[in-house]
C-alpha cells in the first residue's frame, strides 16, 4: 500500500517543483474532409473537430481535478492541411479561409493551440504545398490559435533547398505581418527536419498520415522536478547523477501514462504515445538551463554544456521508455530561449550564443527554438540557419527544427515580450556574413549515405 512519504513526494513535485502534464493533444485525421470547394472543406473540418474533440477540455479538467495533477494545455493536431486542401484550394487565400475555419473550431472546443497548418515537403513541393506555404504569413496574422510547420528534409530524402529558400522568406513575411505584436506569428511557425508524426507539442504538432483516425498523445514535462532531484546529489559521480535523472524521468512519465490512458478511456479515442520532454516555462524553477547549471556548468552555454545536455537528454529517454510502452514524439530536453528563464539570463549575460545553441541542438530533442534575432536579418541568412539545422537532423537521424523570430523593428540589445508560456527574450546577434549564393542554388541536398558510419 502507498505510504505517506510517497504521497508527500508526489505532491511536493506537483506543488513546489512544477510537475505537470503539459498537454493532452488529440490528433485528428482530416483526410475525409477533402472536398471540391473550399467552403465544403471548411464545413467538414469544423464538424469533425467539434465532433471528435468537443469533450476534450471538460474531460481534461475532470482528470486534472481527480488526480490532483495540473493539465496545462488542451490541444489538437490535424492532418497537414496542404493535403486536405489540395483538392479545392487554388490560391493562398483559399488556404487562409481554412485557417480561419480551424481557428473557429479550436475556439469552440476550448483548445489553446491547433497544430497542423502544415506541409511535408522533404523531397518535393506540390502546387498545393506551395500555396499553403505562401498563405502562412496571412494565416498566422489573422488567427490566434493556429500553429504552422513545414518539414523541409529528412534522413531518407535529403533536404529540399527550394523549400528552405522559400521558408526564409516566409519567416520574414510572417514577422512583418505580425509586427504589431513583436512578430508573434513566427513563434507559431516552425521549420522541421525529420518531423515526427505523433508530436503533441506545438508549434510542430501535426497528425501524420501514418496515424489512425483519432488518437490521444500526451506531453509530460517537469524540468523543475529533475532540478530539485539533482540538488540532492551535488558533487556525486556521473553514475549517481544518471541514475537520479532516470528515476525522476520514470516517475514523471508514469503520471503522463496514467493521464493518457484515462483520457483515452473517457473520450473513447485510442492512446497513441507519451512524449516525455523536459519543456521549460518562464516560471522560476521550471528551467532546463537550471538543470544544466545544477549538473555543473556555470551558465547554459559555457564549455561542457553540450556534453551535459547530451547526458541529460539520454537519461530522460532511458527513464521514460521504461515507464511507458509507447514513448514517441520528440521525447528529451527542449532548449527554447524565450520560454526558459535560465536560458534568457544566459543569453543576456553573453554565455549563450546562437552558435552554441546550434551545437546543443545536435544532442537535444529538437532545435533552435524561440530565438529572437534582429528584424533586418536577410531572408537568405534565415534560410542558411534553417539549412544548417536540417543538415544536423538529416545526418544524425534526429528531429531538428528552427523557430526563430526576426523581430520587426528591433535589434540586438532590445527585448521582446511574447507573453504567457512563450515568454520574453533578448534579441540575439546573428553572424553578419551572408550565404545568399548558397541559398539561391536550386534543387535539393541529396540524402546522406547510410553505411560507413564512423
Amino acid at each position, binding site marked *: *500500500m502507498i505510504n505517506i512519504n510517497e504521497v508527500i513526494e508526489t505532491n511536493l513535485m506537483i506543488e513546489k517543483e512544477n510537475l505537470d502534464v503539459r498537454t493532452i493533444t488529440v490528433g485528428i485525421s482530416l483526410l475525409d474532409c477533402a472536398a471540391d470547394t473550399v467552403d465544403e472543406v471548411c464545413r467538414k473540418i469544423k464538424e469533425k473537430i467539434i465532433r471528435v474533440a468537443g469533450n476534450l477540455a471538460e474531460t481534461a479538467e475532470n482528470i486534472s481535478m481527480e488526480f490532483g495533477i495540473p493539465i496545462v494545455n488542451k490541444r489538437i493536431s490535424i492532418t497537414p492541411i496542404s493535403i486536405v486542401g489540395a483538392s479545392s484550394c487554388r490560391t493562398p487565400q483559399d488556404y487562409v479561409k481554412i485557417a480561419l475555419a480551424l481557428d473557429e473550431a479550436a475556439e469552440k472546443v476550448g483548445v489553446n493551440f491547433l497544430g497542423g497548418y502544415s506541409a511535408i515537403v522533404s523531397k518535393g513541393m506540390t502546387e498545393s504545398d506551395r500555396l499553403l506555404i505562401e498563405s502562412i504569413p496571412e494565416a498566422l496574422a489573422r488567427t490566434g490559435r493556429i500553429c504552422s510547420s513545414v518539414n523541409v528534409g529528412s534522413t531518407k530524402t535529403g533536404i529540399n533547398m527550394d523549400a528552405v529558400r522559400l521558408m526564409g522568406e516566409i519567416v520574414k513575411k510572417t514577422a512583418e505581418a505580425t509586427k504589431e505584436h513583436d512578430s508573434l506569428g513566427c513563434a507559431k511557425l516552425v521549420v522541421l527536419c525529420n518531423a515526427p508524426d505523433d508530436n503533441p507539442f506545438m508549434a510542430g504538432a501535426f497528425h501524420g498520415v501514418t496515424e489512425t483516425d483519432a488518437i490521444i498523445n500526451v506531453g509530460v514535462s517537469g524540468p523543475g522536478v529533475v532540478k530539485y532531484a539533482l540538488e540532492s546529489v551535488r558533487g556525486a559521480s556521473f553514475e549517481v547523477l544518471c541514475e537520479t535523472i532516470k528515476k525522476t524521468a520514470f516517475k514523471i512519465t508514469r503520471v503522463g501514462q496514467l493521464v493518457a490512458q484515462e483520457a483515452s478511456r473517457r473520450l473513447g479515442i485510442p492512446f497513441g504515445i507519451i512524449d516525455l520532454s523536459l519543456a521549460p516555462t518562464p516560471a522560476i524553477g521550471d528551467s532546463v538551463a537550471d538543470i544544466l547549471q545544477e549538473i555543473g556548468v556555470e551558465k547554459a552555454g559555457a564549455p561542457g554544456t553540450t556534453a551535459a545536455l547530451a547526458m541529460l537528454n539520454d537519461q530522460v529517454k532511458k527513464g521514460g521508455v521504461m515507464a511507458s510502452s509507447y514513448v514517441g514524439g520528440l521525447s528529451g530536453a527542449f532548449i527554447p530561449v524565450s520560454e526558459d528563464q535560465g536560458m534568457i539570463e544566459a543569453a543576456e549575460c553573453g554565455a549563450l550564443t546562437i552558435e552554441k545553441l546550434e551545437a546543443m541542438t545536435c544532442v537535444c530533442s529538437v532545435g533552435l527554438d524561440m530565438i529572437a534575432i534582429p528584424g533586418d536579418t536577410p531572408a537568405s541568412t534565415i534560410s542558411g540557419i534553417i539549412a544548417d539545422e536540417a543538415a544536423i537532423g538529416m545526418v544524425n537521424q534526429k528531429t531538428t527544427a528552427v523557430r526563430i523570430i526576426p523581430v520587426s523593428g528591433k535589434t540586438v540589445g532590445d527585448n521582446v515580450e511574447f507573453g504567457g508560456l512563450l515568454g520574453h527574450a533578448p534579441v540575439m546577434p546573428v553572424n553578419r556574413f551572408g550565404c545568399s549564393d548558397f541559398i539561391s542554388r536550386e534543387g535539393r541536398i541529396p540524402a546522406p549515405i547510410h553505411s560507413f558510419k564512423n
Partner: protein
Amino acid sequence: MNRSIITVVGKDTVGIIARVCTYLAGKDINILDITQTIVQGYFNMMMIVDTGNIADDFHEFTADLEKLGQSIGVQIKCQREEIFEKMHRI
C-alpha cells in the same frame, strides 16, 4: 472499492482528524488507513479512504474537503490513489 488518498497539511491544531472524520462519516465513507508525520515542522496526515460510493460526486467531495480545510486553517486535498501507485510502483 475505489481508493482515494486524502492529505492534510498545515499547522497542527486540536481536532483536525476529528473534523475530517466527522465529515467522512456523514458521507458514509470508510477510512482504510491513517498515517501522520511531521515534515519541516508541518503536520502531514494521509488517509486512505474508499470513495467507491461517491464516484459520481467526486468533484463536490474534493471541493467540500478543500472548504473544510480552509475553515480549520490547513490544506486538504483528495486525489485518486492511482497517481501515487503509478508513480511509485513498477
